[in-house]
């Protein structure tokens, strides 16, 4: 929960009062899984080319009422990033400008918490457009699946344990099928799957097992 002062400051910065609903109390048990595909990894320079948001209500991932948009960036994506998200120049050229997509996205998300894998990056990307268009950043609470995972997996790990928080590693550990990475919707759906499962493990106090590394020298020879 944002403190009272921060809420006042946010409200003062908000240029467009239409978006005051972002401060409403979020509906119980709801969240939105968010993922952006971008032209690169620098939030100051790079731009969003696709965004997907999938609501989660209780334990149900509402893929049927998802938000998806392809965005036309001001600079066209370069070869390096096309390799990552598969959106070519001609694909994003068919997209809509962010000035049109952002209000729709914000109305879709509303005051609900945002779920994602490295969600700070995605929110920072959206924030850049929000600062420009409505004068302020997103006030929504953020839920980071990799830290939930860290807590379930490595929370009581002995010092020196190798920590692996790669997306594919989390996905494999939780038994979630690969829906095709670097597609905004697939990433958002997989993050939502991770979240509902991790949240349940947390509620039940269940931990993920650390696989013990066997010493390489232990192989019995001549046995």
């Amino acid at each position: 929960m944002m403190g009272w002062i921060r809420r006042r400051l946010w409200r003062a910065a908000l240029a467009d009062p239409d978006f005051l609903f972002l401060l409403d109390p979020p509906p119980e048990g709801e969240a939105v899984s968010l993922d952006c595909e971008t032209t690169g990894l620098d939030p100051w320079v790079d731009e969003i080319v696709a965004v997907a948001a999938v609501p989660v209500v209780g334990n149900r991932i509402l893929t049927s009422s998802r938000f998806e948009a392809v965005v036309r960036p001001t600079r066209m994506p370069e070869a390096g990033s096309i390799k990552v998200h598969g959106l070519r120049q001609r694909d994003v050229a068919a997209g809509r400008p962010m000035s049109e997509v952002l209000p729709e996205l914000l109305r879709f998300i509303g005051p609900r918490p945002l779920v994602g894998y490295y969600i700070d990056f995605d929110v920072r990307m959206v924030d850049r457009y929000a600062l420009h268009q409505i004068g302020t950043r997103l006030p929504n609470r953020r839920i980071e699946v990799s830290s939930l995972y860290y807590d379930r997996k490595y929370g009581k790990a002995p010092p020196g344990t190798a920590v692996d928080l790669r997306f594919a590693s989390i996905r494999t550990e939780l038994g979630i099928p690969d829906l095709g990475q670097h597609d905004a919707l697939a990433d958002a759906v997989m993050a939502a799957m991770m979240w509902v499962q991790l949240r349940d493990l947390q509620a039940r106090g269940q931990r993920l097992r650390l696989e013990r590394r066997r010493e390489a020298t232990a192989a019995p020879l001549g046995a």
Partner: protein
Amino acid sequence: MATGFDAQNPPFDRLTQQEVEELRAAADIGYFTPGETIIARGRASDVLHVVIKGAVEAREGEALQGVLGPRDSFDSRALVHRAAGEDFIAAEETLCFLLPGALVRALIARNPAFAAFFYADVSRKLEAFAEARRPEGGMEGVLRARVRDAMRHRAVTIPGSATIAEAGQAMREADVNALFVRSDGRVGVVTGMNLGKAAVLRGLPLDTPVAEVTHFDVVSVEADDFLFDALLAMTRHSKRRLGVRDGDAWVGFLEDIDLLGQFAGNSQLIPGRIDGARSVEELAAPARAIQDQVERLWRQGVKVEAIAEITSDLNRRLLVRLFELVAPPSIREQGCLILMGSEGRGEQTVRTDQDNGLLLAGPVPEAELAAFREAFSGALDSYGFPPCPGNVMVRNPLWSQTLEGMTRQLRGWIQERTPEAAMNIAIFLDAVALTGRLALLDEAKAALFGMMRGEAALMAHFAYLIESFATPSLGVLGTIMASVGVGEDAIDIKKAGIFPIVHGVRTMALDRGIAATATSGRIDALVAGGALEEGLGRELLGALRVFMAYRIASQIDAVRRGNVAAEALVRPSALTSADRDILRDSLRVVRHFREVIGTRFKTSVF
């Protein structure tokens, strides 16, 4: 595709691209925590669940009926019939697609192939399943071909009063070698060969009315029948030419040569080769041909019950011919060759045993009997019939003796009350008489029915055999074993499915004194007599066909791999989810039937 919904997974593979897109757009994803009840038994569900990851147990009270894994869907009955058949409980952290019930029901109404998956009735589901089974090797055309398409000889009809010479003329003009002959309101067939024999061998004058050399026992098929029906008729009646009718009219002939190019099995030629064999050695080739055609027919997509029918016909012909060749006059005069067990029921496809015996009206010279026993069973051994594990064959004196001895033997088995004795009675109950003094078998069976009539305790003992093998739940071991990484699940279809149905129906038939031996015939008689509810009868037959279909597939596989011990093993993990669903339904029918038998014959006292 971004949500990972797999449209290749049956039954969704039967949807059009547009229908798949509709489903994808409407699907949600649900998460279920271990132990959570997803659908309770008897409750409706407004979504169809398709497992993405995890495991879901199907439970009926305490009993675990099956474990569903990725790509399995549930529960069609909760969705369509508004009441789930079982409790569905998440066994692990589970994710499922949730497909809206209203949309699924709309697709069911629109798309019959998709709808078949949701039938409650196993037999209807099976029909759809059988149709979906694509023949291997691009032979679909053969299956769908109608008699009309293969028929190359048009009908020419002449009156019976026409002369032999006129008939010959008519054949030449129409370029055919058989004619329909209409005489005294009957229709018969005369062939060029008939005319030739009449003139040359019998020396009949050329102005003899053709009706005199016409045969009127015409075997016919309908023009719209499948070619396969024609093949069956040719095999059964040992005919190489069939009359083709279209309603009331005769429209042409179908000759075996017309079929030659179509069916690789050529089973219509086997009877001729059997009847033509003049020694035990000459029978070897057609005996092998019978077995070879089973696999070919199966690959061509012929239904399993039809294969069993055709194979059983041919095997019977073979045994009769062998009997004629090796039995000395004393045995041919006194004896009756009988076929028992699955052979007697006509439900055997790939050979698993011999299951034959001999009944004698009176004593025959011991030396002749001993020689015959060895010659008969020895010949079958050499043709590749596996020796019967239960030693049910002519070679075993227990199964080749006088009527009097056999009746005494049956009484002994009844009093013995051991499972082995009950099994022997069961095998004998399935007997059919093949050749010789057919009435001997009727007498022996009448004696058996007489001994069992009204004997509730004896019937209970007999019925109790059904409990010999437990009906497994699908995939229970699978998940446990897979999670520790050893072994894999396999179900013995013969023990788990076929035997309980066959034996339960057999018990009811014995109780009612029904003479039919085929399970389907017994079910018909039981339903007609009011002893069996019609719906259950249909379900049992449907389930039996499912098991037989899986079994023949696994038998053919076992024969190919040379591992006959595994002939009845089916690995659910190797099946598609639609197949698993049908197997699960069929096993449910078996479990229900066990309860019916248990209640009716009070087997619970054991």
